[in-house]
Each structure stands twice: as C-alpha cells, then as structure tokens.
C-alpha cells in the first residue's frame, strides 16, 4: 500500500484556537512516507525532495557560499546566517532534542565539530587526559585502538600515532575566532560594553517575552518589540536610555542596522563580524528571539519579535552606553582596529591534535560498538525460540529507557512478546484537554498534524497551590500571606523533605490526560472540524494508521489475546527541564493519549473489517489496551480497562501482576545508578525510593533521562533478546521477512536521525562542553519568563542539558544497526537527502546485518564494507541481582569516574 500526500504546513507546537493557522514558507516539509505519512527533515527546514531521487544530492546550506567574506554588508544575508548558527532551542515547555551543532550538519562530523570549535570556542570531544585515562582504565581497549589507528593511518604508522595518542604533550588551548573584534572595546576604549548593555537588554527582552511571571505585563501592541519600545519611549516621562541621542534615533524610527553599525563600527567590512560577535556574546537570548520569530506560537502568549529588532535595539543601547561613558565625540570601533576583518567561517586548518582527538573518539566509540556487534553475532546464532502460545504482546516506545523494562517483562513472563515503535504509535494529532485554551502537538516535532483529538466528559480541575500564587508578591496581600501562608510554608517545607508526595506543582505524567474522560477519536463527518483541523480520524484514516504501524513492526499475524500499547512519560518535581524526560516522539510530552487513541482505533470493529481486506486478520478475541509507563516513578497505568471481555479481563489481571514484577526489577536496575538508594534494600523499599524521587522537590535527578544512549537497533526482538544492553539501546521492531524489498524501511529509518540521533548528539555535546553547549548545573538556575532558565538575574539563557542529566553519559555517536540486506539499506538511506546526510556525514554510524549470512556491514564513504568484530568473549550475566547490587558509587561526576559503571554488553542467560 502506498499513500502519498504533499502539503505545506508550518511546524508548530501549539496554536491558539482563536487564530487560523497560517501556512508559512519557513519550514517547508514535503510529506511523503509510506508508513508514517510524514517526513522528518532536519532542524533547518531543508527543501523537500522526491523519493525517486536515487542518487542523493545533499541539501546545500546556503551559507556555504557565504564563507567568502562579503566586503559589502548584506543585512538580509547576515541575519539569515546568524539565525542559522544560533541555538535552536525553543521554550522549555516543549523540550525537543536536537543536534546542538545542527548548523554544521552539511559537513562531515569531525570537520564540522572542529570547525565549530575554532569559530565559537566549544570543546567538542573529551579532553586528551580524559581519553588517556579511559584507556588506562580499560574502557578503551588496546586492540581496538590499534585497529582504529591502523585502518586510518596505515599499519606502518601505528607506533608513531599510538605514541602521539598516549603520551605526546599537546597544547589543547583554543582561542576562538568569535569575540575578537568586539574585545577591542575593552582593550582600546577601556569600556566593558557587555556589562554596560547586557543586564538591561536581557531584562527588557525577558519582560517583553514573559509568559506569566510578572504581575504587570509589558505594555505592548501587536506590532512587535521595537514598536512597543518606541511607544514607551514616546511617552517621554521615563526612558530605557541614559542619553538622548540613542533615544532620538529610536523615536525617529528610520534607523537601519547599517546606519547604526556605521556609527558604532564604522567600517562596512567589519559589520558582519561585529554582529556575530555581538549576538554570540549572548547566544541564549538571541537564540530564543530567533526561535520565537520563526514560530511565535512556540509561546502560549505569542509575541512578535525578530532578530532584526533585537539587533537594532542592542545597537542603540550600545550607542547609549558609549555616549554615557565616553561622551559625545567617540570614534567608531574600527578607527582603532588594525587587524583586518576576519572571516569567521573561513576553513579551519587541520592539525595533528584534531587527528589525535578523532582517533581517540573513534577508538572510544568502536570499543563499545565492537562488543555490541560481537554480542549481536552470538545472540543471533541462538535459534529463536519457537513459541507455542503468546500470552500477550506489549508495544513500547523505542526509547532506550524501555529497553530494560522489556527485558524484565520477558523474563517474568517468558511467553510474552515485546515490540518497539516510536512512542506516538503512528497517530499524529493535536490534543486539546478539556477546558484547555490551546492545542498540544502529540507527534514528532517536524510533523504538522491535520487532526485534533479533544478530551471531554470528565472535567477535573487541577487544585491550586496557594504558595505559588503571585499574589504573595504584592504589598498588601503579600503582607497578609506572609502572616498566614508563611507558617504553612514552614510546614510544607518540612513535609516536602520528610514526606514527599505528588502535588499540583509537580509535573505528573499521568495527569496529562484524564483517564476517565472520553476522546473524540472518530470523525463525525466533513463538518466536524475546528480551526482548520479535522476532529478525529475517519475509519479509513484509522485503518491506514493501524495497518502502517502493525506492518512496520512486522506484527501481522500471531496476535495474542491482549496487545498492550505502552506509552511513556516522566513525573518530576522542581524541574524546568521536565519535558526533556518525556517522550521525544510526542514533542516532549507523555504519549498517553496516543496509546489510548491507537488502542481505540485497533479495537474498532470497522477498522478490523477494513484491515481484513488488506490481509491483516486480527482475531475478534484480541483486544488492544493503552497504557502509560512513568519512567521516573516506574509505574504503569492502563486505560479503558472496562471494555475488556471477561476472559481478557482475567488475563489482564495476571499480566498486570507480571508488569508489576517487571517494574520491581526495573526499579532495582535503575537504583544501581542512584547513590541515595541502596540496591540491596528490599524491592518494596526500592520501589518507594524510586517513586519518591519523582515527587521530591530536593531531587535534581528524578531519573537519568536518556543518559548513556548509544545504540539504535532496527530489527526483530530475537536479535537482541539474548543481550544485556544496560538501557543504552533504542529498540525499533522491524521484521525484514515481512518487507523483503524494503518498502517500509524508509518510513522507519527516516525519524531515526532527527529523533534518536538528535537525542544522542544533544547529550554528546552537552556532555563534552557543559558550559557552552549544555546548561551547566541546575542548582543556580533561575526561571526566566516561563520559557527558559538562566544562572542569575542578569545572565544569558542556558539552552542545552544540565549537568545532572548528562553526567553518566558516554559521549559517543549513535550506532544504528539494521537487520536487512545491505543493498536494501543503502537504497533506503539514499531515498532522501535529509536522511542520507546523517549517515554520509557520519553524525550517526550505520551497520547492516545481512539476515542471510549474519554478516555485519559498516557504512563508510557511501558504501557498505564487511565488519568483523574483534571481541571474542562476551561475559554472561551470572546473576542479575548480584550485577545490580555490586555497582559502586561514582567517585565524582568527572567523565572518567561518572561513566565507570556504564556496563559493557553481556549475555543474558535464558
């Protein structure tokens, strides 16, 4: 079956119901997919391509041409370039993982990261002594290192390069190109322009974008940021400026960026460099402005702002500060600069040190991959168990946190079967909770659904937390509340510490949808629409989705009496980054609605009938049950259990008990990494401690999120069932036997780059440079305007992941292993340039397992080459409980100590 549609839609997370959705050209995606009917493009909205293109042409970043220096200043071009390189993270409520260095994705991985490092001063790999220490600790094996060096440098060069890697001293200090021009304000004019301008600029920006912290909002009209400031200034009683000139320039309203740069910088040849210096001196704020400009709906209370406005205002503030400090007659910056203008993006010279880093990185990655492949080889040789009866099937998200739960449930009930699919289960829609004023997108971020699911019939209002009300911040009600609520606060602090429990202020995965409410899943006709969205799905649309999902997983026969569709979400307290722990395939939200919707569709009598005509015969007794796994609290809730037949209800009761046992084991396995929980405690106590973490305000690590993710395995569960993968693998079910020509494979592989690769690379970069590419430690974070965090009242926004999320992560790229014939896999990845870019530029690794021979083929430079693992022995897990209980606590959260407990691949005794 093929199902093609093309339409252009803007990507957005939430929209106001009152406003019609306007199509925009900014992020154009061509919708083509056999399976998911959706296209996953990179973050930058590369142009759509037809699937027929067999020889892919990589999407060319327009900036490539710009890498020659522009002598004349082209404002439009420079703004475009700036937006391309600025961090793309939007408001924190919709946390969408993405490659932190997405701007360089058109380059090969190493070239890209070293270039980014030279331009912006990022650390892009581990430090040299860290690699060396990992080697000494045996986490990088000598055999692997030797092979990596020999393959890349030749066997005769092995000794030389090994010496370089292990012992040669290098000066690893890095002076970035960014900021060099603007530093002349300090050296030549003795003025710290950043300190003069930034605190006020950030404050005004934050006030303007604020979503609901301030009690008194920024007085604004619909015309945008600059216009709002003009209105305030025109008022005349007070001003943001200290001096008159800058204010007058603003009020006259016809100052262009060029005009202002002429005053500040002077020489046109330096304009571009200056703007990059300026905007990257606060890349967090500039990034959010750029993100909000592209999709104002990213904020619930949408705001009109543009990078252009920000630059104009910042230049005016600079003029103001210079006037105030230097008096009227100061010269433009470039009158005192002798160095020629620098092309920030000029090619970066390759150095021996870069080679050393890339060799170490390769060795670090292959040390793990090699044992994984060796393990897969061994595991695959075991004959798959012939199942007589399947007790139940459970479909989980591909999320690597479900990897261990699947292992445990299979252990508890050996008759069951587990499968993995992206956690929106192939149903893409906006969701409107009852009484909600907005829609929430519940599918991967790059997809724009045309459907709306509404919740109705069981309104349950969230209780208020009096202590959170901002009335306590005013004078008189503040006075009354300090005298009353103040003492209640003391009691609450006490309870928080000694009796943590769920409260309205804690983000509760199970509260995302009211399980007692009904959902408008089925469309009632042509007029059943709202704001250009179709409410619910027609029977045909449901059938297409159910069929696509089942075929993708290879689940087209052998249906068990109950098939669980288990979504996941995460409860956590005091955590602005809570969205990063929810389901990435649901735009950073719990996937409960998707699970419930899918189960409903698959249970639909008419859908079953249509499926039958398409060759999928689901027995009448088979019933689908939706559920939600809270990955922090390790609990599972089930939806719509009431409709189960009496027979199935009995089975369900039994299965639930099995799930509970699996959750026990899962909690125990997770407790291995938590210093505050002893894995030797009784299961009951561990479960309690794990649950408490998710509701404890003092716990900055409710769970460890995607930390340690490294693998993505696309294939039958039998490939991996014998392996202990330590919660490091995204597991996507796919059965090549049902898809020999690989027609379904593009639909399955397309999301892997943006979703799994995006998660992996965000963790990678946040780990290697938590200061510049990560958010630093959570503890001093201050919530800004409800859309971001900064370190203090005057600081820059901190995109990326906080240290508490990444400390156990091994910064290695994702290895995708696909079980299919190499030529089919090659054809698949070449079917779309955006997908191909991830592989050919080595942002993820790819290995195909030839199902006929069980041989491994590694994708390199456009072709698949055979790969033979070096690893001979894979240690067995002698005893699960011993393995978990013998884990040692990390000494520090420095990389070498913190990742020492990342376990190698082991064999599970079956």
């Amino acid at each position, binding site marked *: 079956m093929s199902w093609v549609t093309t339409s252009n839609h803007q990507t957005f997370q939430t929209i106001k119901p009152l406003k019609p959705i306007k199509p925009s050209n900014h992020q154009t995606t061509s919708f083509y997919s056999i399976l998911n009917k959706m296209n996953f493009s990179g973050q930058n909205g590369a142009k759509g391509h037809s699937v027929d293109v067999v020889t892919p042409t990589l999407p060319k970043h327009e900036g490539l041409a710009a890498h020659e220096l522009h002598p004349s200043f082209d404002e439009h071009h420079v703004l475009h370039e700036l937006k391309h390189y600025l961090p793309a993270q939007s408001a924190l409520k919709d946390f969408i993982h993405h490659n932190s260095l997405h701007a360089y994705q058109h380059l090969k991985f190493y070239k890209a990261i070293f270039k980014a490092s030279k331009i912006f001063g990022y650390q892009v790999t581990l430090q040299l002594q860290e690699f060396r220490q990992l080697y000494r600790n045996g986490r990088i094996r000598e055999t692997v290192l030797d092979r990596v060096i020999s393959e890349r440098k030749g066997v005769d060069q092995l000794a030389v390069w090994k010496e370089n890697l292990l012992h040669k001293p290098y000066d690893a200090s890095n002076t970035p190109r960014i900021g060099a021009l603007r530093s002349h304000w300090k050296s030549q004019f003795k003025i710290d322009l950043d300190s003069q301008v930034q605190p006020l600029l950030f404050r005004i920006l934050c006030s303007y974008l604020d979503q609901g912290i301030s009690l008194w909002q920024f007085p604004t*009209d619909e015309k945008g940021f600059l216009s709002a400031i003009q209105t305030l200034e025109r008022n005349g009683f007070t001003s943001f400026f200290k001096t008159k000139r800058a204010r007058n320039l603003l009020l006259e309203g016809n100052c262009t960026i060029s005009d202002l740069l002429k005053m500040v910088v002077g020489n046109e040849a330096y304009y571009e460099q200056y703007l990059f210096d300026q905007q990257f001196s606060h890349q967090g704020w500039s990034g959010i402005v750029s993100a909000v400009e592209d999709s104002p709906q990213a904020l619930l209370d949408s705001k009109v702002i543009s990078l252009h406005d920000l630059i104009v205002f910042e230049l005016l503030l600079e003029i103001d500060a210079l006037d105030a400090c230097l008096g009227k007659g100061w010269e433009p910056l470039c009158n005192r600069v002798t160095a020629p203008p620098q092309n920030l993006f000029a090619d970066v010279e390759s150095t021996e040190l870069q080679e050393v880093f890339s060799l170490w990185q390769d060795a670090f990655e292959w040390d793990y991959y090699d044992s994984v492949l060796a393990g897969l080889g061994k595991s695959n040789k075991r004959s798959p168990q012939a199942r007589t009866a399947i007790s139940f099937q459970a479909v989980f998200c591909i999320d690597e946190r479900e990897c261990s739960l699947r292992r445990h449930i299979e252990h508890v009930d050996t008759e069951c079967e587990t499968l993995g699919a992206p956690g929106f289960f192939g149903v893409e829609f906006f969701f409107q909770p009852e009484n909600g004023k907005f829609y929430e997108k519940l599918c991967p971020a790059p997809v724009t659904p045309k459907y709306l699911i509404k919740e109705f019939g069981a309104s349950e209002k969230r209780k208020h937390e009096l202590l959170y009300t901002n009335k306590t911040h005013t004078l008189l009600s503040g006075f009354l509340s300090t005298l009353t609520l103040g003492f209640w606060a003391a009691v609450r602090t006490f309870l928080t510490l000694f009796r943590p429990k769920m409260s309205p202020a804690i983000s509760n995965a199970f509260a995302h949808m009211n399980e007692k409410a009904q959902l408008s899943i089925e469309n009632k006709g042509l007029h059943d629409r709202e704001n250009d969205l179709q409410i619910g799905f027609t029977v045909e649309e449901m059938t297409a989705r159910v069929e696509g999902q089942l075929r993708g997983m290879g689940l087209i026969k052998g249906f068990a009496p109950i098939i669980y569709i288990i979504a996941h979400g995460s409860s956590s307290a005091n955590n602005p980054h809570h969205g990063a722990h929810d389901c990435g395939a649901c735009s950073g939200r719990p996937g409960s609605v998707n699970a419930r919707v899918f189960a409903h569709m698959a249970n639909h009598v008419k859908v079953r009938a249509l499926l039958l005509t398409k060759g999928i015969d689901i027995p009448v007794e088979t019933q689908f049950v939706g559920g939600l796994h809270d990955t922090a609290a390790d609990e599972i809730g089930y939806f719509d259990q009431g409709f189960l037949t009496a027979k199935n209800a009995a089975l369900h009761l039994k299965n639930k008990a099995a799930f509970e046992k699996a959750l026990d084991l899962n909690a125990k396995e997770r407790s291995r990494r938590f210093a505050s929980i002893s894995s030797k405690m009784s299961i009951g106590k561990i479960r309690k401690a794990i649950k408490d973490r998710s509701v404890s305000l003092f716990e900055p690590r409710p769970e460890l999120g995607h930390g340690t993710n490294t693998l993505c395995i696309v294939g039958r569960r039998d490939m991996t069932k014998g392996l202990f993968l330590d919660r490091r693998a995204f597991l996507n079910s796919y059965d090549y036997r049902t898809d020999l020509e690989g027609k379904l494979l593009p639909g399955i592989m397309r999301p892997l780059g943006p979703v799994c690769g995006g998660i992996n690379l965000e963790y990678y970069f946040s780990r290697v440079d938590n200061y510049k590419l990560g958010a630093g430690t959570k503890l001093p974070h201050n919530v800004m305007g409800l859309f971001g965090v900064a370190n203090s009242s*005057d600081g820059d926004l901190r995109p990326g992941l906080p240290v508490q999320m990444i400390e156990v992560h091994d910064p290695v790229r994702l290895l995708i292993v696909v079980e299919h014939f190499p030529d089919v896999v090659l054809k698949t990845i070449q079917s779309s340039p955006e997908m191909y870019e991830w592989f050919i530029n080595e942002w993820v690794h790819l290995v195909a397992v030839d199902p006929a021979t069980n041989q491994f083929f590694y994708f390199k430079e456009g072709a698949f080459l055979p790969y033979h693992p070096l690893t001979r022995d894979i240690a067995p897990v002698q005893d699960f409980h011993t393995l978990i209980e013998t884990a040692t606590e990390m000494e520090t959260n420095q990389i070498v100590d913190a990742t020492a407990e990342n376990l190698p691949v082991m064999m599970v005794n079956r």
Partner: protein
Amino acid sequence: MSDITLGHPSSLIPHQLKRKSILNRSTLMSQILQFFILIPVVGFLAGLFVPRKKERILSGISIATIGLQTLGILTFIVWWLMNRAPTLDIKHIVLYKSPEFEFFIDFYFDSITAVFALVGAVLTFLVAVFSRYYMHRELGFKRYFITLLLFYIGYNLVIFAGNFETLFVGWEMLGISSFLLIGFYRDRYLPVKNALKVLSFYRLGDICLILAMWMSHHLWHKNITFAEWNQSDVVLEAFQGHYLQAMFIVVMILIAAAIKSAQLPFSTWLPRAMEGPTTSSAIFYGSLSVHIGAFLLLRTYPFWQHEMVISGIIIAIGLSTSLVAATIARVQSSVKTQIAYASIAQIGLIFIEIALGWHGLALLHFAGNAFLRTYQLLVSPSVLSYLVHDMFFNFSPRTTQVPDTLFQKIKQAVYVLSVKEWNFDYLLHRFLWRPFKWIGRKSGIMGPRWGLASLLVLFIVGATGFSLKENLHFEFHQYLTLLFSSLALAMVLKAFAEREDAKHAWLTALLSQFFSALSLLWNKDIEWHQTGIYLSGTVVAAIVGYICLHKIESKEGEISLNEYHGHSYEHPGIGLVFLLAALGFSGFPITPTFLGIDLMFTHISANQIVLVVLTALNFLFLELTILRIYSRVFLGQHKKMYHPVAFKSS
C-alpha cells in the same frame, strides 16, 4: 550582669527566696548561651577535617549540628518561658583590656533573640537537609556545607550578641560567607562579579557599624552593652548630653540595617546575590541574612525609641522601600528576582512596624516572611511547569491599551522605571563608587617604582621622626596625622583601581596600612603594642598572600588585574591559602587585626571627623581591594582554555 526582668512573687514562697532562685536560674541560663555559639563552631571545625568526597559525613555533620542546635534552642526557650522569660546578659570573654579600653564578648537573650534563634535554626536545618540531596555530587559540596556553618555561626553571634563588638564579629562572618556563597560557582564571571558587588554594599554597612562603635566608645568611654541601653537613664543621658553624637550612632546603625536588609536606596544588591545554588539563595537572601537589618533595629530600639526623628526616618525608608520594591516586584519576569523584591517590600513593612513599636507583629512578620520566601525560592524551578499549566487552562489574551490618558502615561513611565529598578544601581555606581575609582586612578602617580620608593622614604622619615614627636607642636602632629591618613586612603584607592600588576596592588595596600598605623601613631598617645596588635595580623597575612601571588606569577606568568584569571582551577590549594591571607589582611576575625581595628578607632577622638572618615574609608576599600585581587587572580573564567570554560554572559 544587669537588668533581669523578674516575675511577680508567688504568695506561697517568701518573696526574697523566689527572687534569689530566679536570679540563680538566670545566671545558669546565661551560662548556657555560649553553647549556642559553641555547637556550630564545633560542627564547623569538625567539617574542616572531612575529605571533600565524603558527602554523607559532611552533610551529616551539618545536619546533626544544626539539628542539635534547633533542639537545644527549643528546649532552652521552653525552659526560659517557664521561668517568665527574663532578659539575659552575660559578659563572657575579655579579649583585650587596657585602662581605657576593654574588648569583650557578651551574650544576650530576650524574646527577639528567641524568635530569631528559633526561626534561624529551623530554617537552616531544613535547608541543610534539603541540600544534602540537592547538592549531591556538586563540585564544591564541602565548600557549601562549611560555608553554611560559617554563616550559621555568624548568624548566631549576631543574634546572641550583647554588645556591638560581638555583633560585629558575627556581622563580618555573615558578610564573608555571603561573598563565598554568592561566588560559589567561582569559574563563572557573573557570580564572582556579583559577589564583589554585594560585598561592597556589605562593607559599607560594616564601616557604618565600626563608626557607630567608635562613637559609642567615646560617648560612654567603654564598650556599651545592649542591656545597658534598656536603662532609660543611660539613653537619656546620652541624648541630652551629646545629642549629635548619639544621633550619629543611630544614623550609622540605620544605614547598616538598611543595607543589610536591602532597603532603599541599597535594594539592588539582593537580586544579584541570587547566584549560588538555589538552597543558599533561599536561606541567605530569602530569609535570614536579609532580615538581619530588621534585627539590628529591634536590638537597638531601646536606644532610639524616643527619638521621633529616627522613627520618622525609619518609617519613611520602610514605606518608600515597600512601595517601590512592590512595584518593581510586579514587573519582574524572572522568578528569583521577583521573590527578592517581594521580600524587600515586606521587610520595608517590618521596618515600619519596628519603628512604631509593634514588635510582636514585626517578629511574626519576620518569621512568616522568612518561611514563605525560603519555600518559594526552594521550589522556584517548579514555577515553570505550574504556571505554564495554569496558562494552558486559564489564559485569556489581553486587550491592548493605547496610552492616551495621563494616568496611562504615568503608569507606563512607572513600568519603565521599575524594569530599570528605579536606576538605583546606576545612581549608586555613579555617585558613590565612581568618585573613589576616579581618585584611585588619579593616585596613579604614586607608582609604580619611583612613587613607591619615595613613599617608602616618606614612611621611614615619618616613623623615625616619631621619636621626635615630643619636640614637635601638637598642631603639627595633627597635620601629619591627616597627611599620612590621606596618603593611606589614596594608596588603598590606587590599589583598588589598579589594573596592572596584582603584586603591586597588594604591596600598595600593605603600605597603606603602615601609613594608616603611622597616622594614628602621630595622632595620640597610642601605645606601640596596640599598633603591633593591629599590624601583626596584617603583616603576616600580607606576607603569606604575597608569597601566594609570587608563586602563581612564577607558574603562570603575569597576573594583571585587568581581567579574571581563574587560577583556582589549577591551584585550588594556593587559592585557599591566599583567601585566608586576604581575610587576615582585611581584618576578618582570624587574626588579632580585627581587635586592632577597634583599638585604632578608639584612638581617634570624637571630634576628629576628617580623620575618622579617612580611616573608615581606608578600611572600607582595603577589604574590597584585597578581595578584588583574590577574585581577579583566582576566580572567574579560567584563562587557559584547554578545557570547557563558561561564557562570560552566563
């Protein structure tokens, strides 16, 4: 021992007997007070010896210490209440004694102390437990808990203090622990910058306290205890006999209190202090530290209660602060800043309550505000999901208002003003700090080499000429005193504004202290050993500090003060030694210098306003200079970028 409030005699027991037993019990109670200082000190000292990776032991010691203290205070208060809540006062340790001057530690306990001690103990205990998990694996875990205990010692010293001297020791500890916790993330620029900024405010408050102490020495010719102020004749006499001097004392206390409690025009430091871990911000700037100003007013209330002018000023400060801060709080768009201003506004009200004599209400208000703001800060990260959720269900798009009416225009003007925090930061910088920086830069002529050399010569001449002191005219003494004192201040300011060599700045600061001592030697009949007490700590600390700087320079090359070097990344040991040296140098109570400072001031007469101002400014800028050198050399972004280094703006 004085003024013990007594209960009414019971009818059953003979009057005298009861009185005596209460007296005895009061003595016993007074004896116990010292333990409330001792317990945290023991915890602090024990913590120092625990290796930094032993999180459980480190946090355990803090929790046990503060837990014990909480129980102790609770039990004590119950016992104290059962004995009809007498006011206790006890003179403990005499640190220095000469015929005209006595420096002693004195403890005091009344209902004000009781409330502050209880609230402080409970909050610190809760925050310590919270931090045990929250701070897990944070770099600087030990530093955090040690500094928390140091803070707690300081807090207790302040609230149990029976005289200014004791209070001042605690006050200094609060200041330094604030500096250390604001700059907790020492490898970033903003925390370090803001730590210094807050310190500069605090130091201004310290100097005001020193001046208040100085004047009170002259007024009463002894270290007055707070208990003595309860005797109305002492106060009455002071105000009747020496109105201006008494007023001076009160005004100084008032400024110190306003600074510490972030009242106008000093409010802007509070939001900038929220740089450390949320837990430390919660306890320091949400609750305890920021209420110390109110405590100071409560404690000194008996002294100024009858002066309508003072009450009026306090009410004016409190009222204007609460109005302005509440307005600023309305426009704040970041959570912690909003809580900071909301707290300031309530403290403004507390000031008013104190001035009006409603102390019960003030204490209740203090406790409520402290608990509420601590909680709000601790849970401030949750606000994001809580309020976004709220918006999701309750949002209504607002209507745009065109500012056509005058009222609307004024409203908008106030909005802009409030976003800019009423320009207080800018104004203070411009009119308070910038003139001193200007003088410092102009003092550049005194250096680097010839200037220093000629100063040395001048010093030697001054010191040797001292033997001729007897032969010279008294007026000449005075000129020399002022000359040396001005030179000392100019030198400190020069060191303060120094951008080049750290070692040079350090030496200049040291030399200024010699000049300062010299000026006082010429001033009056000061004894050599008293100067010795002052200089002993300074010189030793300065030498140790100089060696540290020298070591760093020989390892890392030039250390200019034009930028931050962040050398504590590679040399944390040297950094720690240097910090201790810097504290000793600037008169922190770890060397005899802190006593010396008090001694030196005693030798300035009540009418030598110029000299006292010069000397006070000298001490103000000395500490700022010294800690500025520490910050620039050891803190901030590390200069060597072979490892991840933070952006300056973060």
